[in-house]
């Protein structure tokens, strides 16, 4: 695994940890979708099968979370935002 993959997986795992913690505290259906999406992206990264972003496309994580999360300062939104930014910059 190269440095780029390792850093990307670190960011995904960070978001997964926050999402799973939130799920333990409150049952929000969207958290299940988010966790599934993060796990699917992680598997694609490990397999080297993630489509490139061309510096434009997103993974839909920020869109998915910003739509419903209570606070726009939420650590979960920051965490998925960091994934999106890394994806656009390093998988271009």
């Amino acid at each position: 695994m190269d440095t780029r993959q390792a850093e990307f997986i670190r960011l995904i795992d960070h978001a997964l940890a926050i999402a799973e913690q939130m799920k333990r505290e409150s049952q929000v259906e969207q958290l299940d979708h988010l966790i599934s999406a993060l796990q699917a992206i992680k598997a694609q990264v490990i397999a080297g099968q993630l489509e490139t972003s061309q510096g434009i496309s997103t993974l839909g994580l920020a869109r998915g979370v910003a739509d419903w999360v209570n606070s726009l300062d939420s650590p979960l939104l920051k965490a998925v935002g960091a994934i999106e930014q890394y994806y656009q910059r390093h998988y271009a």
Partner: protein
Amino acid sequence: MGNKSVSTSLGLVAVGSLLALTLSLLPETSRQRVLAQNLNPACPLPEEIAVTFLNSQCKKVTLLMPQTFFRYYSNETNKKGRYLTTDQYQTNVQVITNLALNQAWGNKAEKMLSITLPAGTTVYQGVVAPQNPTSCYPGGGQQTFIENSKDPYLFWTEGPTLTLEPFSCP
């Protein structure tokens, strides 16, 4: 080694001074443009939200009069939220592709809501960014983001059911 380090530092100071001088000589608008690029204010929203707009570009608008927007949904979970649009679509597939509604999130876009925002509401408008896989979710539709979808002064009205067509994404 020491001399190299001193000359490198002097060089950096000189470059910095030259840059500052160049900026001060630029007309006000050009100077703002240069600084704006550094701060990436193409969309005055946090980066994690701006990224959902094409090229992270959006425009902040304060509504001068009440305005009606649309939202597409399929169940109570995705009925209300911060993402709206000015675009009216006829079919679920148009919505899913143009608004890049990744089906993994469960919104099948089967129904439409009209949302009237009161005058004075701040909205952020731009174009939907494509989502991975882009062959399924190219985006390109109009996107409006509101900070508070739970504002009691928003008026949500049920709209028509959309024409449903099969959608598949490899």
